[in-house]
């Protein structure tokens, strides 16, 4: 019941995470910064603004924002914050989450092909290139968490990661490292991408968004926030220490998510964006570590 309530609240609370990260970044960088609720103000402003369409753009451009927001909405209904979670009719399969995240990415990329904007295409091309490494990593990380649970049912994986026993397995440590990299890739944050940049030539995730305005942009900004919620909830629920109880588990998972926003803020302040062509090396390298984790589990390596 409680976990279901939190999952529904997440739909509204997701922008709070991006607001928190921005606020903490401003603090670490010595700026006054925008209030934590700024993402909500932006969404309200955009929601009431006129939509300006790219002339000549087709169905992919029109559908992409709402469709990607719908995909992320489904992700929020699938990803639990506790070991027992109500079924909202979309199940709890981790592989569906992987698929939906990929679908949202693909939709945005298609919108760029539709508008044929130079910056959008360039950025979408980069996004898809990195997705090859990023989705490989995400799949491995899911596998690492699925092995102890014996399946890809997320509540079962959540329970499998609860308590201290799991930390005896090196696979879990490798999975945690992989998951942290997934967080950077999926949230589009430094050193992979820079969500605050105005430099079009360096953009990855932001590029296709340049062509959107008004309500469409609101959908996309909410999608980014929802992506933050989903990957941070997965990180905390599947790879960070938490108790098996529902109430205590939810409290601890939410607390971890707050800690992770601070970590992202610190990383984004102290780490420069890496040279674009090196990103696949980094993501792929971490993917190899995750692969070692999976292999170690299969061979029953335990401390």
């Amino acid at each position, binding site marked *: 019941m409680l976990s279901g309530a939190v999952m529904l609240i997440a739909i509204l609370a997701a922008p709070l995470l991006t607001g928190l990260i921005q606020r903490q970044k401003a603090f670490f960088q*010595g700026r006054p910064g925008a209030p934590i609720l700024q993402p909500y103000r932006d969404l309200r402003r955009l929601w009431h603004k006129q939509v300006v369409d790219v002339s000549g753009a087709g169905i992919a451009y029109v559908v992409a924002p709402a469709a990607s927001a719908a995909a992320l909405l489904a992700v929020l209904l699938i990803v639990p914050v506790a070991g027992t979670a109500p079924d909202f009719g979309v199940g709890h399969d981790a592989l569906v989450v992987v698929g939906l995240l990929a679908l949202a990415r693909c939709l945005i990329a298609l919108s760029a092909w539709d508008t044929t904007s130079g910056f959008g295409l360039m950025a979408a091309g980069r996004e898809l290139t990195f997705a090859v490494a990023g989705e490989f990593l995400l799949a491995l990380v899911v596998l690492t968490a699925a092995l102890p649970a014996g399946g890809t049912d997320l509540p079962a994986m959540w329970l499998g990661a609860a308590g201290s026993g799991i930390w005896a397995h090196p696979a879990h440590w490798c999975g945690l490292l992989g998951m942290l990299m997934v967080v950077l890739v999926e949230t589009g944050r430094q050193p992979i991408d820079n969500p605050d940049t105005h430099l079009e030539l360096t953009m990855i995730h932001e590029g296709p968004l340049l062509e959107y305005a008004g309500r469409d942009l609101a959908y996309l900004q909410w999608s980014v926030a929802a992506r933050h919620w989903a990957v941070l909830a997965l990180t905390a629920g599947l790879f960070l220490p938490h108790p098996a109880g529902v109430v205590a588990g939810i409290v601890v998972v939410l607390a971890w998510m707050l800690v992770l926003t601070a970590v992202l803020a610190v990383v984004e302040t102290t780490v420069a964006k890496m040279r674009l062509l090196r990103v696949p090396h980094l993501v792929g390298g971490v993917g190899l570590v995750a692969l070692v984790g999976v292999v170690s589990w299969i061979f029953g390596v335990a401390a």
Partner: protein
Amino acid sequence: MTAVPITEAVAVDGWRWHDRVAGLLDDGLRFVSLSGTPDGDVRCVLADPERTVVLTTAPAGGRVASIIDIVGAAGWDEREIHDRTGIGFEGHEPLRPLLRHPSATSDWTTPVAGADVHDVAVGPTHAGIIESGHFRFHVVGERILLLDPQLFYKHRGLEAAAAGASPELALRLAQRACAACAVTNTVAVAQAIEDARGAMPDAELRRARTLLLELERLYNHVNDIGAVCAGIGFAMGNMAFAELKERAQRLNATLTGHRFLFGTVAVGTSELEIDAAAAAGARTTVAGIGADAAALWADVHRNRTARTRFRGAGTLAHADALALGACGPAGRASGIDDDARVASPRLWYDGFAAARPEAPTGDVAARIGLRVLEIVACCAIIDDLVSAPITPGRVRGGNVDVGTGVGVVESPRGRTAAIVDVHAGTITGMHLRTGSYANWPALAAACTGAILPDFPLINKSFELCYACVDR
């Protein structure tokens, strides 16, 4: 006391133009500028520490021999003259438009062909608060094969407005060319006017102007290091150097009443007064900025993620820098041992030596590293200058009525030259060739072989001014 440098004016027949320029280059003079005169002639200025030579030729049948085969740096100058006056340059093929913006891209870009080659167009309107400029990248994937920049979007006619103006108005117009180089541009023009009149600044005037120039360099250099950090999303470095820039600009306001040092330079005189108390305060502030810049740079340099981005990015090879006439920090970072301050008899740089990078690798790292070195020197010069009070200065001499004068000043971005014609107290012609103008072709060359997302970083490591070309 340094002798008054000699400016010789020489009229050259069209058929001897190329050879005369070549001959002066062989004598060790360096190219300063190429421009059109008020009379419709073409003028080339060359100089060495002892003398300045102003060669003038009348176009025969609307054409003059091109000198780009011996002075690669004159490429933009010849294109500009052609766009402004229609004068053609024999041997400069193709003579692409520079100021004029033809509608067909192929009319102004370099043809690039091959498998998977495509163009990426950026600007002229950008997402940041910067001036207008269009960049056309010819790329394969992320790799830049060639960059064709198209600037000159907001021509203001400052030089045309200066023709017929009083020296004071001409100076104010030159100041408006660019805020970040306001002192450099006005000192160059003031020097050119004084040179034309045969006047020489006294010690007080030289000290005051040198102080202003170094104050300008200080706030520019700390700003540019912060901008490079912003180019890689490195917030810590960006914010820290932005704070240093603010301190430097507040010092400007305290000493001169203006954060950008506007209105501090005048022809033939200086009203700047800094008493012992203000000087002591300035010394403390400058010492603090210098020490903090060094410490912050050490922090930035220790950060591996930042360091690896700077290294090897946007390399300007020594040969390219030499051929294109790269100057300022960009030229010095590529091993061009040149700084206008070394031979500046009209300023107070006795015993000055150009900063030399540890390794002239010509990449972003070298360009920032050089600025870090220059900040140290800059703080030392300011400290030395304000160790005694700054008092009003004047020029000596200055009874020549008609003449052409040249002023060369090292700006934070490179060599800035002003050529001014004076006739009975009126300016009849003014040409400003700033360090930014001189370095834009070098920036384009540095981008070849780089990857597209590195362009903002490379661009910021030059930190050239768009407004400086929109005179």
